[in-house]
């Protein structure tokens, strides 16, 4: 008996654990949103956070009903099973973002009303969803192959985001500087690499080794990360930021580039404790859209190295 077949023996336990974790996750999620005080503070953030689980529910459901394994698409039991597993996955993902990205939906978004964190977190949440949903695409012997393929995507996603942060200090600029433009770019980046790595995690299961080999189809995530790093540095170096030399050269591996200085000058608006340059905000939105378009193109047009 193969390891995946052996894992299937645990299916009922996995369902029960997933259902409990998913229920706990959703209960905690909405309880925190509804009990955040004062009620009128951060209404848009609460709305976005409130809609996110509904949105990802339908995203995962659509994939399960249309592109999952042949024994899943028409089976209500398995669809519920993978939905519960999906929300347990997202619970894990939220913890991962809190640990590795220092990005907390409770602390940064609900408690501090940090709009930059809202954009970054939303992109990350959707990126995590895409990886899980895509890991369900294709035929396979059970939940083990979904978790295995998804874990490859998740680990790569974390590593690429950490590399991005190593060169740009993006997480700190989102959570401490409350740089909304950076939050938009970071959120878009997390979603974009999620799309590419999701594609890499998808496909029919043959073996663990072949899943790893076929995962290499996610190679466009690497040049996309490099592009995102370069763009991020250009956004930082851009003359639109104040370049008063008060920055610590040890702030990043690039050393002497100036961090955003956020000095109130004409054309800047105060949003969520940060001063936002509208032109940078607009170009960040455009860059974010570009990243996502590149990711979508890469999974639909670019030839894979391994013919997946």
């Amino acid at each position, binding site marked *: 008996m193969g390891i995946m077949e052996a894992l299937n023996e645990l299916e009922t336990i996995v369902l029960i654990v997933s259902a409990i974790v998913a229920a706990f996750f959703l209960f*905690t999620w909405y*309880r*925190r949103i509804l*009990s*955040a*005080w*004062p009620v009128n*503070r951060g209404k848009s953030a609460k709305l976005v956070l409130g809609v996110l689980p509904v949105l990802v529910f339908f995203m995962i459901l659509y994939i399960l009903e249309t592109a999952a394994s042949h024994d899943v698409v028409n089976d209500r039991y398995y669809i519920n099973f993978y939905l519960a597993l999906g929300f347990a996955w997202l619970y894990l993902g939220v913890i991962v973002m*809190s*640990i*590795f*990205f*220092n990005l*907390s939906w*409770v*602390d*940064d978004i*609900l*408690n*501090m*009303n*940090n709009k930059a964190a809202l954009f970054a977190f939303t992109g990350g949440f959707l990126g995590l969803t895409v990886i899980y949903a895509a890991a369900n695409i294709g035929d396979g012997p059970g939940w083990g192959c979904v978790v295995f393929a998804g874990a490859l995507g998740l680990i790569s996603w974390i590593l690429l985001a950490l590399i991005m*942060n190593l060169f740009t200090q993006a*997480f*700190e600029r989102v*959570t*401490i*500087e*409350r740089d909304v433009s950076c939050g938009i770019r970071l959120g878009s980046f997390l979603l974009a690499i999620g799309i590419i790595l999701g594609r890499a995690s998808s496909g029919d299961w043959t073996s663990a080794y072949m899943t790893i080999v076929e995962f290499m189809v996610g190679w466009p995530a690497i040049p996309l990360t490099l592009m995102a790093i370069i763009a991020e540095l250009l956004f930082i170096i851009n003359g639109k930021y*104040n370049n*008063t030399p*008060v*920055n*610590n050269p040890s702030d990043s591996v690039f050393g002497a580039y100036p*961090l*955003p*200085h*956020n*000095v*109130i000058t004409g054309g800047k608006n*105060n949003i*969520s*404790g*940060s*001063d936002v340059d509208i032109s940078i905000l607009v170009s960040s939105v455009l860059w974010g859209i570009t990243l996502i378009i590149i990711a979508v193109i890469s999974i639909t047009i670019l030839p894979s190295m391994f013919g997946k």
Partner: protein
Amino acid sequence: MLSNVEVYKIWAQDNALWTEWVKPVSFANMRRKNFEGLSIPKADWVLQSDRSAAIIVDLPGKDGVLEGLALAHIGYRPVPLYNGVRYYNASKMIVPVHEIEDALYNGAVELSGLRISLDAPPAFLLDSNRMSGRVISGEYDNRWSIFPQDMPSASYLIGKGIRNVIVRTDIMRNDLEHILYKYQSLGITIYMDDGVIRRAVKVSKPSKFRNLFYRFSVIMGLRRNPAGGFGGMVPEESSGGYG
């Protein structure tokens, strides 16, 4: 009698520069009662409002609030950063936040009578007892910590013309060092003032400075409250044994 939201809005005035940083936790759980007068000290350790200086008041209990109100009288904007949740049984709380909340409640009347500029320099208010106290089973653990995310970034302060940060305290606490070291590294001068003597200090680099896991690891040792902030019962230890 003001509602909790009205009291909050006095301390977190709309459009004021530092309102985003005011922590709502202390206001959410306030007990409404008749206003009592406060004995506000004179902030004679600060001569006048200095627009290039931000103040961090790190004093125990309600002293921080009273000092903040004294600073408000000379033009500073007090910004309460208290993040510990109140428990109905005051004797069970590890950090006694009830007197802070009472002072904030009573101070609202005082504060509403003052005309403070919307862009007045800030006086951030902290409770120096926030991490003190032993965690005992059956008690309400409302210890809390301050993180770099809880205060404006160094570049934001500099952008608002802040060049000096004066910490009103007797001892520099580790969580505050994480914030002050960053401020210092970006060119802000840090002063420590115990109410008698003010001296420029060089903040040492704290361990885990800028570590991505720092905040998570500290929070893991505290108890979150579902409504925000920190506060939760420490479970009673099982008596064990049989019979």
